[in-house]
């Protein structure tokens, strides 16, 4: 599918993020996502996955290092990307319908048309019956699905997702995952997908990146997943290739887990 001559990659070069107070969340993290690649990032909680995604989105300026998008250095927002946040990010004063329509409205689509498309997307994520509810009237999983629709409706070239399916039951999650894969296969966008679920990562990704435990986290493992596509996320889990990949990645993660354990048991590394 990669017919473009130009550089169509997303690159993070030696990115370091230091927060106010001196906490080094991410240190010297480098990552290249090729055109049409679906990347999953896994890693222990609090290691810096969201931070890295914020950097890729242009929402957080790295203290050191830089980001380039399709060959151009990123300054300011990443306009080619859509971002599904880990935190609640629906506008509380808009119904599900209007929340999903928001992006189109911003692009100048007339409200009527935007709503119509929004309805279509709400149906896709199974919220057709709840389109007139405000975020606080939706359940946790429904809010996540609305956020998903809100991002996908804009058809971004780069998709950034931060634990999008964590609040969904297995069945709904698989529906969503398959839908996401279907959309992605249509025109092979770049996808950066954070999850804490290794199985989900393997089922979806071309490549799984393992982050080390924080502080000063960075990618320490890089696994190509050579499962055939198109995949069905439920079925693919039963294949031997899947199990092989799983155990390979798990081996790398074990070390980080041990670090985590130490943090739990030992004293705090805190002044």
């Amino acid at each position, binding site marked *: 599918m990669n017919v473009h001559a130009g550089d169509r990659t997303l690159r993070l070069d030696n990115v370091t993020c230091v927060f106010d107070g001196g906490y080094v969340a991410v240190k010297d993290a480098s990552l290249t996502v090729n055109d049409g690649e679906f990347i999953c990032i896994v890693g222990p909680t609090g290691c810096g996955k969201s931070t890295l995604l914020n950097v890729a989105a242009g929402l957080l300026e790295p203290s050191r290092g830089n980001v380039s998008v399709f060959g151009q250095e990123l300054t300011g927002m990443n306009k080619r990307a*859509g*971002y599904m946040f880990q935190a*609640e*990010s629906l506008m509380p004063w*808009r*119904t599900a319908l209007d929340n999903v329509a*928001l*992006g189109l409205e*911003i692009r100048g689509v007339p409200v009527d048309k935007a709503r119509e498309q929004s309805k279509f997307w709400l149906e896709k994520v199974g919220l057709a019956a709840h389109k007139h509810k405000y975020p*606080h009237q939706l359940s946790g999983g429904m809010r996540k699905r609305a956020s998903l629709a809100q991002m996908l409706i804009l058809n971004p070239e780069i998709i950034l997702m931060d634990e999008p399916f964590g609040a969904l039951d297995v069945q709904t999650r698989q529906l969503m995952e398959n839908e996401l894969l279907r959309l992605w296969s249509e025109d092979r966008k770049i996808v950066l997908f954070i999850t804490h679920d290794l199985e989900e990562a393997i089922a979806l990704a071309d490549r799984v990146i393992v982050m080390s435990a924080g502080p000063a986290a960075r990618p320490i493992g890089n696994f190509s997943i050579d499962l055939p596509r198109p995949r069905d996320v439920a079925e693919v889990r039963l294949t031997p290739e899947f199990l092989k990949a799983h155990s390979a990645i798990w081996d790398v993660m074990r070390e980080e887990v041990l670090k985590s354990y130490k943090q739990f048991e030992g004293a705090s590394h805190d002044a």
Partner: protein
Amino acid sequence: MTRKPSLPFLRLCQIGLFFFLVLAWYVLTAFELAPSFFFGKPLVVADRLYQWFATGKIYIHLWTTLLETLLSFGIGTIAGLAVGMWLALDPFASALLDPYVKAANSMPRIILAPIFAIWFGLGIWSKVALAVTLVFFVVFFNVYHGVRDVSPVLVSNARMMGASSRQLLRYVYMPSATSWVFSSLHASVGMAFVGAVVGEYLGSARGVGFLILQAEGVFDINTVIAGMVLLTIFALILDTIVTIAERRFLAWRPSQGSQRA
């Protein structure tokens, strides 16, 4: 924390309280426990009000004051919104102008009245100007803080969707600051009336404040109170309109009634 009271009972209490207060006023002044020279007499006040409307004499004054109030409410609100948004979103301008805004807010308006008279004449516009200086600051401070109180995640989300500064304003900052704005609007309804009446009081040829000033000159406390009652009624009407608008704009908010007490 208590259960929502039933509406009829509430209305009953409200009316009861009202009559109780008027009765207390009546009794206190009738027996001169409170000097009627200062506090007037409710029946005379009512008569004054009746006469005003019966003779039609009040309309020109009332209309003048209402016009001034509405104009200053409108202008002050819009200016407060605009400047508040601007300074909240432009840290440089904010830091630069901050002391001037605060200095302006601490200026006793009464002393500015002569200057307004020069600039705007003694017609309605000098009153509007005076009232605007009251309304503006109340709205301004709330908009300013309201905009800064917006959740950063919502802003980030809208920006990722490609919102320009203007669109951020329209789609995120303004709706998010709505409850702040309405809080200030409730305060400024009163301020607009106060400004208009004080302006009239400081120099005018008509308006309810003018009537009050005239009556004060001849120790006619009942007319003064009648004027204040009239103003109050109209302030409550205007406030009700604000409340209705507020309900409409803030319909999305979780009602606390659905939670158990």
